[in-house]
């Protein structure tokens, strides 16, 4: 299993990072974290999928609306490294159980500080993850705006 957050790290460096974490089983339909929860752990998906949702009012009631799905190897919950350290989405294991590695923020920070070369690579990998999310959502936002403008101009 290769994790996007550990790209470019040597085998030993990756092992050291993974040893900081705890393997968690997320049963089907169970929440890994909820929007607004304190974000003190970062998750690396090992098996199954993690479904990310946001609440939306649909016909007068609140529904969790699908936003994104994370596959094995992908990172979930980078809010743990970004102030104000609160999750901005809700993460759930959908139909099948998922397995994730939970990396505590403090332990990860200490490792990054003690191993700046590995820390640099992890920081770059994290920038790729965050940058991809930004690019995706600015594109989707613009497409929705374009549709709104077309409807209003019709």
């Amino acid at each position, binding site marked *: 299993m290769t994790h996007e957050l550990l790209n470019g790290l040597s085998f030993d460096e990756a092992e050291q990072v993974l040893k900081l974490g705890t393997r968690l089983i997320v049963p089907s339909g169970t929440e890994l974290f909820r929007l607004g929860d304190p974000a003190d752990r970062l998750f690396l998906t090992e098996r199954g999928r993690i479904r990310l949702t946001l609440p939306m009012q*649909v*016909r007068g009631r609140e*529904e969790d*609306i*699908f*936003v*994104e799905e994370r596959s094995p190897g992908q990172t979930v919950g980078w809010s743990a490294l970004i102030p104000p350290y609160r999750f901005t989405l809700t993460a759930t294991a959908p139909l099948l159980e998922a397995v994730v590695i939970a990396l505590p923020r403090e332990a990860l920070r200490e490792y990054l500080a003690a191993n700046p070369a590995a820390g640099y690579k992890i920081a770059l990998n994290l920038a790729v993850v965050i940058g*991809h999310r930004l*690019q*995706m*959502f600015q*594109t*989707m936002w*613009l*497409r*929705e705006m*374009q*549709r709104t403008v077309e409807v209003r101009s019709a």
Partner: protein
Amino acid sequence: MEMLLMGMCVAVFGMGIAAVAFGAATRSESSDSAAQPALSLVKADAAAHFFSDRVAAPPAVPPAPAWSVPIEVLLLQIENHVRMEQAAAESFVAYPTQALLHSKTSSPFVN
């Protein structure tokens, strides 16, 4: 002779007055009869439809919402729409062009 002329003048003057009076009476009757139905129509119309000349709507009773699709189907449509938009966004992010940015979606949620 003078008496005869004076009598004729008085008679002509009287006939003139009578003619004027008759004309005035006849004119006022005809104008009243022409205006009255219109006034009564306007009044009746105004009473039935205050701001509009269209047929008045029945008393406002909020209709019970009749959704065309069940909420489960709607949520599924939303999810499929998001997935299709993500695929479109992935294409744009991988190879950014204006055409890909504004490519039309076939998502039934917005079509």
